[in-house]
């Protein structure tokens, strides 16, 4: 049996990937919205996005909208694939060992 993806398995990173994966390919979420959707704090969210980014699962784009800096996070094709495999693994675990 394949292993769960350790990078995605962490609860907050799982929520980040689930949120980004729910969007059409190439579409991202800005930092405040991602924070609201996942219920994370600024520091916590930043750290976990960094981990996902280093793994190549998300792309982080920083730009200025007017005078305000805006950070947009988008799931990469590699990240979407990893997330799909992770979800398939979770379903496999449930199918293999149904809870009583």
């Amino acid at each position, binding site marked *: 049996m394949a292993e769960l993806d350790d990078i995605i*398995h962490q609860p907050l990173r799982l929520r980040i990937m689930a*949120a980004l994966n729910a*969007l*059409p390919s190439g579409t991202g979420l800005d930092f405040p919205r991602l924070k609201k959707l*996942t219920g994370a704090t600024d520091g916590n969210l930043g750290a976990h996005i960094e981990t996902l980014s280093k793994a190549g699962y998300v792309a982080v784009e920083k730009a200025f909208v007017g005078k305000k800096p805006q950070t947009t996070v988008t799931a990469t094709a590699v990240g979407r694939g990893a997330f799909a495999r992770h979800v398939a693994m979770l379903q496999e675990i*449930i199918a293999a060992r149904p*809870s009583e």
Partner: protein
Amino acid sequence: MIDSQQASEALADIDDIARRVRQSRIYNLASLLMILWGALVFAANVAAFALPRYAGYIWIAVNVVGIVGSFVVSAFTHSRTGVRTFDLRTLMAFLLFFAFGLVTCVLAHFGPRELSVFWAIYFMLFYTIAGLWVGFAFVVIGVGISALTLIGYFLAGNWFEPWMAVVNGGGLILGGLWMRRV
């Protein structure tokens, strides 16, 4: 390795987040449309109050501008997010909804005041029913504006149009702004 209980919880978490993302995208577009229609309805009620003889033309113009504006807002959202939300099917649904309302008005022989109340409540009914599927904010806005519209119908007297400008137009604008924060 995790057990099936933990796997189920993780999948439930994923489903919950995906549902919230979908709701957030719907709220984002709906709030823009609400602010647009709120501004138009506010302006139309004020104009109809000032120029009652031209009320019919004013409302026709507002509806045309509103439909065109809705397409523009949708195109703007599409260019920013890549998501198309106001397509041909949406337009058909809007036209069918509008046609049904028009037939009802013809058959019921409403007066000007009843017409205003009918269209406001009719659209809010749509919001309220849609809210049962897509989000609680729609239900609050729909029921709230309907209730205030009825209060105005019975109690606002000669100030009915200004009341409707504030309650219906202003209500949609405030509802749209609130929706962006929910």
